[in-house]
């Protein structure tokens, strides 16, 4: 039989119920119990032989564990450096945006000042122009000026 190795030393037969003075089990039960025993013996013998090679499995597991750790560390380092880089980039962008806003404000101020200068100049020209009246109207202008003084 297949399992006659280290497991085959005992008798290869389950004692009948009658021999044991147990409640009588029918033939089908006896046969099922016999098959069950043979199955357990075959399984046990296969696993018992396999467990002796456990060292290799453990070593493979430890390699896998080490690889897993290395990968995890790399992932964490990548995530952290990515986060730092992203933060740095955002700060740079914010600085550039602030500088652009400042330049824009300066430009707007300069434009406003230039516009105000132009308006003042135009107003001055207008007033100068309005003061210079044709000679035909000079007497009337003098009268108006005297009225203003009074």
């Amino acid at each position, binding site marked *: 039989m297949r399992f006659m190795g280290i497991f085959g030393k005992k008798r290869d037969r389950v004692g009948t119920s009658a021999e044991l003075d147990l409640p009588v089990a029918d033939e089908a039960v006896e046969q099922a*119990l016999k098959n069950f025993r043979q199955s357990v013996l075959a399984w046990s013998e296969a696993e018992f032989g396999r467990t002796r090679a456990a060292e290799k499995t453990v070593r493979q597991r430890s390699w896998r564990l080490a690889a897993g750790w290395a990968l995890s560390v790399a992932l964490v380092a990548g995530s952290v450096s990515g986060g730092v880089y992203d933060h740095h980039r955002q700060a740079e962008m914010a600085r550039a945006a602030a500088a652009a806003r400042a330049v824009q404000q300066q430009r707007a101020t300069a434009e406003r000042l230039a516009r105000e200068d132009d308006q003042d100049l135009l107003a001055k020209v207008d007033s100068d122009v309005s003061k210079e009246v044709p000679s035909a109207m000079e007497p009337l202008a003098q009268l108006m000026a005297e009225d203003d003084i009074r």
Partner: protein
Amino acid sequence: MAGAAADELAAVKLETATQEFSNIVTTHRPQIFRFLLASTRDVDLAETLTQECFLKAHRNWSSFRGESSAMTWLMRIAINLQKDHWRNRRMQFWRHTRTNAVDLDEASDWLPSGERTAEQRILAKEQVSQVWRAVKGLSERQRTVFMLRYVEEQELGEIARATGLSEGTVKAHLSRAVGRVRAELGGKR
């Protein structure tokens, strides 16, 4: 002079005991492993408990008086370890998960090839599967007694000594276990 002789004698005794224990391990380890595997359906757990069993036996080897056979003594240790394992609250996690225990169908796949026809093999596999189902429904004590009788083929007296039960109780447990198997196979309990 006398001291040296005593030392030599002690060394010889120790060597003899070590050799004896080594033989015990070689002879009985497969059986203990098989019993634990059948009881737990978990290869890793069976291997661990087998190691623990022999470690415990080695520590207590000097106190073994040979009142029972070494196998009975080892089996008693194995049964207690198994009991402790399931009852230990620190092992609660294992009790809930039991991820390593193979399912009943997988356990039933193991059959010696022998000289059977395909039909006989299918029938045998079905029977084995039914017995596993019946075993699953047994109490811890019934299962232990059942395995000792129908897998390890121990006599009632040996089972009684290994489990610490009376022969009558062992017989009662066996009777219930066989009744369950019969019921699972389709007969009357």
